[in-house]
């Protein structure tokens, strides 16, 4: 139970309790205020999930604008202040609604638990740097980059989940290594705390070595000094001989830093430390630029539509012109 869990469960309680009150209260103004509480909680959940930019956008757009629009809607439709008995359906329909809502929520939860399982840490390959350096998650494409880069990471330690022996990322990693001309027997990817692919330096190039696993148990036979069995397929590239850790962003200094084995900390180039807003903007204006334009058109259409809808056309309600009033 980490601080993130405590914060998440507190926020989840606030969100769900406010949402239930929002759909059950008979006071329309209170309902709008409960909606604001729900939206604030969701913004907090976004921040906990590592989406800071989105969380604050939620605060700006939802809490700052949409709740205010709702307040205007409540007031312009002359909702009674205080308790109103005319905003709910009759009890029989409400019981039906409760059943439908419960079934939908139960269906979704069942699907998610069935698909992901409870307690399964996370998906995606988690590559960890050597001990004593800071860890970060690396996906398959980044490992690909590391393998083809000049400053190759000498050892790639791939964390495998303890619970699931054969996961998709294992297969993905096997495919990746196959493309590199390295075929491992599937047994080498045993479930365990880690899998290690050491690199041997030979005159022809670098070779990946297969550790000598204890095939009966779940752990390698010798945790530290496994037998280096070259695969016989050297990678014909000039690869660095020094162990270089994957750079990690240091948000305090605004630079990416690399911690070497001897504890030395190397400061990288400045301004190569994208924040979440940078990443979102990069993705938004590269991969999703056409949907972005489409959404801008939708907003424009909504703007014009709102003006057209809200205009009052009946002549009785036309306000007198200024000059007529003056006369």
């Amino acid at each position, binding site marked *: 139970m980490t601080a993130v869990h405590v914060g998440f469960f507190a926020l989840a309680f606030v969100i769900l309790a406010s949402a239930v009150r929002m759909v059950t209260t008979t006071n329309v103004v209170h309902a709008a205020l409960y909606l604001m509480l729900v939206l604030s909680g969701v913004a907090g959940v976004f921040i906990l999930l590592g989406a800071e930019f989105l969380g604050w956008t*939620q605060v700006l757009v939802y809490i700052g604008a949409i709740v205010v*629009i709702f307040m205007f809607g409540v007031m312009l439709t002359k909702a009674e202040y205080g308790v109103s008995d005319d905003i709910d359906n009759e009890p029989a329909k409400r019981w039906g609604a409760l059943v439908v809502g419960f079934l939908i929520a139960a269906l979704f939860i069942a699907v998610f638990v069935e698909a992901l399982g409870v307690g399964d840490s996370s998906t995606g390959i988690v590559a960890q740097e050597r001990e004593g350096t800071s860890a970060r998650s690396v996906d398959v494409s980044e490992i690909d980059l590391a393998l083809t880069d000049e400053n190759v990471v000498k050892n790639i330690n791939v964390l495998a989940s303890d619970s699931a022996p054969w996961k998709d990322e294992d297969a993905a990693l096997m495919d990746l290594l196959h493309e590199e001309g390295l075929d491992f027997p599937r047994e080498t990817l045993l479930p365990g705390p880690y899998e290690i692919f050491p690199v041997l330096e030979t005159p022809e190039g670098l070779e990946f070595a297969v550790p000598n696993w204890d095939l009966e148990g779940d752990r390698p036979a010798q945790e530290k000094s496994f037998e280096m069995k070259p695969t016989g397929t050297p990678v014909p590239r000039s690869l660095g001989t020094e162990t270089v850790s994957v750079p990690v962003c240091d948000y305090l200094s605004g630079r990416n830093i690399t911690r070497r084995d001897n504890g030395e900390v190397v400061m990288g180039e400045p301004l190569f430390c994208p924040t979440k807003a940078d990443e979102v903007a990069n993705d938004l204006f590269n991969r999703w630029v056409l949907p972005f334009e489409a959404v801008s058109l939708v907003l424009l259409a909504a703007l014009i539509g709102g003006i057209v809808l809200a205009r009052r056309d009946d002549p009785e309600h036309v306000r007198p012109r200024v000059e007529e009033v003056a006369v």
Partner: protein
Amino acid sequence: MDTVYPLTLSALLFGIGVYGILARKNAVMILASVELMLNACNINFVAFGAAWNEISGQVFALFVIAVAAAEVGIGLAIVLLIYRNHVNVNVDEIDSMKW
């Protein structure tokens, strides 16, 4: 954090939103319940994006926020028009288009 927790939260929030849409008859309250469901979808986008280390989840949540803003603006304009013509905004009494 385990991905299932935010997904469960979003499923419950979505269910509450569905209940709100079906149980209310005030049009403004129905629109507010739609907002609950859209937020549940956003939590899903962000949770899956965090689980797969994929920033596009957040981009799609941004799209949803933008479309929700448009939807709420248009929706409340329509509700306002209905109020002018029918004096109340109860959806079960708005049946002039019923054949």
